[in-house]
């Protein structure tokens, strides 16, 4: 549904996006992650046809954005990062204006505007001048503007920024409810949010693609970690743990929280297998299992390890001591 091939965007000497390729399948909700200045907004602007790429090509809804910009724009709802609305218009009037431009039929306009106002929960402010709205309300009007006309593709640049906790929850479930019906790309700095609503992620940093895959496979690649403490002779326990299936490596962490317990950190090759085996083994030997914590890597750990790793080696080809 959305496809970027070798996408590069240069602003003068600055390369904001550097040879990035990724694909998002129809119905998927894709999270766009990366540190500040990574090139997320720039990539989204190219996808929406606002700026042309310096190199490469982007396809949205099966259409080449450079060749068929108008047809692409008819199928895309876009929420820009800065939510630039017309402050001199009233909420309802503004949405009617956008609806007309997006080709909503005259007869269906009132209903369409009502629908998106309901979805973005702004119906109570329909008569307000946009200029007088609070930041969160403006953000929601921006979202309503993107939703009107029911576009196949939604491109949302930090959609939940500036919203209050209740609204964040509402908007997240609104976006989540679009899964399977619309294709959504959203950027966010809130990793738990992406983990909650997205099925896949694209991570970029410094304009380069670091990852483009489903959250599960990203986390699985990282493996996660486990921590065991048990009342047992430390050397025997350590040796036995290292031999269990699903365990990659074991490191002793000294005495556990309770007297007589030993604690070990475990890097598993398969988290759930390792966890099952460890529990069974320790109990089977008649030792007392004090704690067994940890699990699959979270998106946050995956993100930090990817972005952090890229931090440590800004020049992959440079030799290091």
């Amino acid at each position, binding site marked *: 549904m959305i496809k970027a091939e070798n996408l590069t965007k240069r602003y003068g000497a600055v390369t904001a996006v550097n040879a990035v390729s990724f694909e998002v399948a129809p119905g998927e909700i894709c999270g766009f992650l990366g540190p500040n200045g990574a090139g997320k907004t720039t990539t989204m602007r190219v996808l929406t046809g606002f700026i*042309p790429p310096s190199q490469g090509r982007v396809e949205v809804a099966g259409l080449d954005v450079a060749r068929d910009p108008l047809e692409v724009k008819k199928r895309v709802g876009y929420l820009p990062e800065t939510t630039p609305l017309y402050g001199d218009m009233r909420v309802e009037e503004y949405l009617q204006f956008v609806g007309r431009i997006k080709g909503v039929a005259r007869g269906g306009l009132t209903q369409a505007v009502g629908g998106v106002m309901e979805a973005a929960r702004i119906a109570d402010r329909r008569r307000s001048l946009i200029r007088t709205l609070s930041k969160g309300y403006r953000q929601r009007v921006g979202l309503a503007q993107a939703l009107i006309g029911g576009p196949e593709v939604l491109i949302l640049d930090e959609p939940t920024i500036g919203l209050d906790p209740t609204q964040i929850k509402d908007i997240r479930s609104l976006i989540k409810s679009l899964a399977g019906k619309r294709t959504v790309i959203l950027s966010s700095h809130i990793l738990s949010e992406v983990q909650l609503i997205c099925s896949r992620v694209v991570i970029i940093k410094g304009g380069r693609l670091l990852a483009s895959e489903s959250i599960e496979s990203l986390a699985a690649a990282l493996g996660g970690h486990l921590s065991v403490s048990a009342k047992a002779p430390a050397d025997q326990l350590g040796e036995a743990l290292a031999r269990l299936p699903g365990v990659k490596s074991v490191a002793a962490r000294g005495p556990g929280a309770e007297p007589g317990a030993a604690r070990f950190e475990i890097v598993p090759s398969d988290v759930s297998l390792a966890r099952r085996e460890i529990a069974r083994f320790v109990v089977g030997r008649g030792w007392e299992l004090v704690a067994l914590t940890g699990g699959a890597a979270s998106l946050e750990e995956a993100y930090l390890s990817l972005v952090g790793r890229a931090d440590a080696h800004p020049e992959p080809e440079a030799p290091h001591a």
Partner: protein
Amino acid sequence: MRNLITLTGRELRAFFYSPIAYATGFIFAVITGVFFYAALSYYGMASYEMSRMAQFAGPRELSLGEYVLRPLFGNLSVVMLLMLPLLTMRLFSEERKAGSLELLFTWPLTDFQITLGKFLAVYLVFLLMLAVSALNIAILAWFAPPPWGVVACGYLGLALLGAAFLAMGLFMSTLTENQVIAAALSFGALLLFWVVGWLVPEQKDAFAAMVEYLSIFSHFERFSKGVVDTRDVVYYLSFAFLFLFLTLRSLEAAKYRG
């Protein structure tokens, strides 16, 4: 077409939400009235002098067209040069600064529709201002019927002149996100096209003809005298089209700059 109407409607409304249109329109109306009053009282004085001297020179009537309308149209054209950049300055600059161009350009609209929508809106506001200034003519008609042909020609000329000024102002507003700079640029450029007329060399060669052709006001003279020359009409129309075209090019270039 529906998009064009929608866009023009929004732009028009934006004009009436902002104080600039009211302020500009009000000042335009006042200045027009003052010029009209000045021309009319000069005409009255001259007619009085004329009637006193009639015994020597024989009876002769001063023409309203020559003494009232022509100076009025001349003055209006200069006032337009000063005021119209204030109407066009915000058209693109404001949206560039606010960032709303990002949405405008990602809605299913062509650059042509966007440009034409803004131009039509500002042109309608300008026509409204002209209509208000025509009240002066109505007052004149109350006392003495003016030569309607000259009135029509003069207003046609002003309407064409306005299209040229506004198209240039629209173009200038694509160049910067600062409205003051946009107004200064179009004001300066219009002044240049005016001043060029003073530089027409004495000898009547091809160069002199070209300089005179370029001058934006030399084409207006004939309209204010009540003469419609197709060359003048073509000049103003091509001036307007050139700048609308440049506006489209400028929007395109801005996308590549990002």
